[in-house]
């Protein structure tokens, strides 16, 4: 079912708006809509205003930004690698960002200031980018990029495992594990100011690649013969993913599957060209992660569920549906 592009974008935007409003309205503390509206307009009580502006608003903004970045990066990578199973972690950037965060916890730097962890995580993503460019920056085949991504990602995962292995006590290991599961709990505007510029720069670079990704539908030779500069396309893809996803993982931890499932959900609604799913995947990712984060808060449980756990569970039915569709085809 192909929807006209602008109706798809309008429908997804509406969904995202509803999700964002719901994310502001519901949470651990039950606040009436009237109190929140009063707080939003500036004449509410102090508690409502703190909950709205210092807790729920940054959390909502981060869910939107991180979700959009993961959805967009997934769509761009699937287009570039011409593989519907690609996702942002394919380049190893998210693992490297996670390692940066783990390092901050392991060496106790995260306790100095809340901002140290996301800064080190962003640093991890940038180091992985440098490694990726060194390993695969010049070659033109997607295979070399995947191999370089696996090498960088495996190295980062090994480093994370090492940190867990060498943890002085179970509590330290637990803290690392908890962060790795991914969450938007207790985030402030400090985190927003780290994530937003990264997401903005990363998204712009990936969206700029749209036409080049369309050309790659015909293979690399045909894409070049259609005027595509493959080296620049790849560089924008690497920079955009590393900066954007690095910034997203830095504030939210490693949240999987959003980048994988959102393009899958969006693709059947478009003309299936890689460029057509970029922007809708960003908006859809924002809606999905905001709704998942809302679910985390309102699903009753004694310990708050981690966002990465919920998105992982969401991924399963999407792939089961795909599997069933494939079986019917064959």
């Amino acid at each position: 079912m192909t929807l006209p592009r602008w109706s798809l974008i309008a429908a997804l935007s509406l969904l995202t708006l509803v999700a964002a409003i719901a994310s502001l309205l519901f949470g651990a503390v039950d606040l009436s809509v009237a109190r929140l509206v009063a707080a939003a307009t500036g004449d509410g009580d102090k508690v409502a205003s703190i909950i709205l502006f210092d807790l729920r608003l940054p959390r909502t903004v981060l869910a939107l930004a991180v979700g959009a970045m993961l959805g967009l990066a997934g769509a761009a990578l699937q287009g570039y690698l011409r593989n519907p199973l690609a996702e942002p972690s394919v380049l190893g950037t998210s693992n490297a960002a996670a390692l940066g965060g783990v390092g901050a916890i392991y060496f106790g730097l995260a306790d100095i200031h809340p901002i140290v962890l996301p800064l080190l995580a962003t640093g991890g993503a940038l180091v992985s980018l440098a490694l990726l460019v060194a390993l695969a920056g010049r070659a033109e085949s997607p295979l070399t990029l995947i191999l370089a991504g696996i090498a960088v990602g495996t190295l980062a995962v090994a480093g994370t495992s090492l940190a867990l292995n060498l943890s002085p006590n179970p509590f330290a290991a637990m803290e690392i594990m908890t962060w790795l599961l991914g969450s938007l709990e207790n985030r402030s505007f400090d985190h927003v100011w780290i994530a937003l510029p990264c997401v903005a720069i990363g998204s712009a670079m990936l969206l700029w690649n749209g036409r080049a990704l369309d050309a790659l539908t015909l293979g690399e030779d045909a894409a070049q013969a259609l005027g595509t500069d493959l080296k620049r396309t790849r560089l924008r893809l690497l920079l955009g993913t590393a900066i954007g996803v690095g910034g997203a993982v830095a504030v939210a931890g490693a949240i999987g599957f959003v980048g994988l499932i959102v393009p899958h959900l969006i693709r059947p609604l478009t003309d299936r060209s890689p460029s057509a799913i970029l922007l809708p995947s960003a908006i859809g990712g924002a809606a999905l992660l905001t709704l998942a984060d809302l679910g985390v808060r309102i699903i009753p449980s004694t310990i708050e569920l981690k966002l990465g756990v919920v998105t992982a569970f969401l991924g399963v039915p999407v792939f089961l549906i795909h599997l069933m569709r494939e079986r019917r085809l064959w």
Partner: protein
Amino acid sequence: MVSLVLDHVGVTLGRRAVVRDVSTEFGPGTLTAIVGPNGAGKSTLARAMLALVPATGTVRVDGVDAAAMPRAELARGIAYVPQGQLLHWPLTVERLVGLGRLPHLTPMSRISAADTAAIERAMARADVLDLRGRIATELSGGERARVLFARALAVEAPALIADEPLASLDPGHQIDVMDMLRAEAAGGALVIAVLHDLTLAARYCDRLLLIDAGRIVAEGAPAEVLTAERLRAVYGIDARVETGGAWPTITVLGRASV
């Protein structure tokens, strides 16, 4: 008007010299076939003309060095139908043909009325208007060949290079594709096709370029190039070449006895 001039062009892939010291030229309104055995360097030569492989020597498009041209400008000068019918996503025929307009667009520009008109013209010329809403990956080989040809026509470039456009097509569809190439040349385009079918090459092309081991062995009118001696030397076959009709016909008798 367009001209394509190759001046001592060589291509080395890995350690192997695949194309060696090729100098020749192509002009508008002609259909040239590049023929030769497997591994002779035909496709690599075609890719060198499009600056898709690093080459020594120079390829000049209307007097300008192709390697120094911005990619988009070169793309507007020469359209290309690559080997195989590669298509990674299930696009509709209309969307696929529309990819031919990419050299005329910038990353954020909108498709203009002129682009839409060019897409319509290309689909009409390749006779795929009735397929426009179909998913290109679900078409038959013959239909897909026409659609990919339309994609190249949508570029509206003065030159066209097609790499083995007849591969895996039945005789009827082979003739359809050759008719389209012929029509483009008749319309003033510079057309080059890498071909394996020597009789079709002889029947449709103004000029043949016979390549072996990366070098030009012979070039000229089909009847001059396709002699039994050359076919024996280059392809290792015994063949009967009949030149009495409107075009030379080649009957392969068997492997040449050494």
